């Protein structure tokens, strides 16, 4: 059994560092930016033409929250090649597995996290907006300097939930032919017929990475809460 572990470890870790971790980190960063934009658009009280833009973002969030990630990956990777647009994409949109994966994971993360960020922004008392408005700050200045720093504190645990979830969801990338860590564990299982052992082993490596993330979360929670008197 020990031999299986030592044989599998380098293969698993190499897949982890080559695919799982980069995909998770890149997608999360893009997803967060997307989520922030989405939350701000949806919270905006602008009227007129902007209503349509808000509608588009609403639809985006609905679409990516409501459908399975696996299907999203599938459609982006296998479905878009059928989408031929004359002049622009005469042969359909053919994305590499990497591109398709990053796009889909980012869009998915963006949809979920936008809800978290929206809730966090709403939780900041109105008085903060008013005080900042009366100093003469613009909406974007207020967001950047007053509201978001406070909202970050509230949204850290759910955002970290999303990140940790994403790390595990990268295993779906196998369905678009990316041989990430989980797929490697299945390939090894196919040889050694020890699924329980291999699954436990790969779970351990996920856990290691997620533990690091939990530490980062804890550190950020502390450092964004230093202005708060302790709750009981």
């Amino acid at each position, binding site marked *: 059994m020990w031999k299986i572990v030592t044989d599998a470890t380098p293969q698993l870790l190499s897949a982890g560092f080559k695919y799982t971790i980069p995909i998770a980190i890149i997608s999360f960063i893009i997803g967060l930016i997307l989520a922030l934009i989405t939350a701000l658009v949806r919270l905006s009280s602008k009227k007129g033409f902007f209503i349509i833009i808000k509608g588009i973002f609403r639809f985006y969030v609905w679409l990516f929250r409501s459908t399975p990630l696996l299907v999203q990956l599938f459609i982006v990777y296998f479905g878009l090649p059928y989408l031929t647009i004359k002049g622009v994409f005469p042969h359909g949109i053919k994305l590499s597995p990497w591109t398709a994966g990053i796009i889909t994971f980012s869009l998915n993360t963006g949809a979920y996290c936008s809800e978290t960020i929206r809730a966090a922004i709403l939780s900041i008392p109105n008085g903060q907006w008013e005080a900042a408005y009366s100093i003469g700050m613009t909406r974007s200045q207020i967001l950047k300097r007053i509201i978001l720093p406070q909202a970050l504190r509230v949204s850290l645990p759910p955002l970290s939930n999303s990140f940790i979830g994403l790390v595990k969801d990268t295993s779906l990338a*196998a369905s678009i*032919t990316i*041989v990430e860590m989980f*797929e490697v564990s299945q*390939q090894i*299982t*196919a040889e050694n*017929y020890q699924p*329980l052992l291999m699954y436990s082993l790969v779970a351990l490596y996920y856990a290691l990475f997620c533990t690091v993330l939990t530490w980062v979360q804890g550190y950020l929670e502390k450092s964004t809460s230093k202005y708060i008197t302790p709750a009981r």
Partner: protein
Amino acid sequence: GSNSSDKGGSSYKSELTESGKLTIGLEGTYAPYSYRKDGKLTGFEVDLGKAIAKKLDVKANFVPTKWDSLIAGLGSNKFDVVLNNVTVTNERKKSYAFASPYIFTQYVLVTKSSDKNIKNLKDIKGKKFAEGTGTNNEDVAKKYGAKTIPSDQFVNSVNMIRQGRVQGTVNALDAWNSYAKSQSTKGLKARAIPASEEPFAQVSPMLNKDSTKLKAKVSDAIKDLRKDGTLAKISKKYFGKDVTMENN
């Protein structure tokens, strides 16, 4: 009942996970072996499972699940037998028991029809091939030096060839034939691999190593089914020909 297993009596029944039932694990997502039609699980292996159960004088209980779960489930006694187009290999024999084979599978090499470079298995060296993880198809592709890309369904492998994402796939000829029966194969070509180039794969029921009596019983049942023509009959029904004979 059959004469050849009378010495064991019905003591194999104590090896069943659920008494009175032969619990059969399969994927249910691989036509024509096992798949869903009109809401019901059907396919060659489903009919075979029912026939074996009848010989064993128990009810057949089909449990569809994922490939890894089939392996894990045998280990923790969730199934009695796996009927899932499992090919017998020396590696697999170390961990599991195999009853006597019920299919001899010829391989097929599928590529784009415009592909002039790949004519036989020797040409696939270094090429990208779509194969199911853990399948004997993958083993063969690897053996001939192809770079395998994971693909969990046959139809996805075909689509990847069409979209130029891979150069081809090594697969069961029967799976290809079944596909070709209902779908257009335009732009694709398939070459059946003769036994001289790559021996046919033996497909057998896979069992837990501890189920020795059950294994013997299942082997007997298959032999009986072969003898009484049932095997050939259900093969014709699903494959349009008899794939249950060596060198069919």
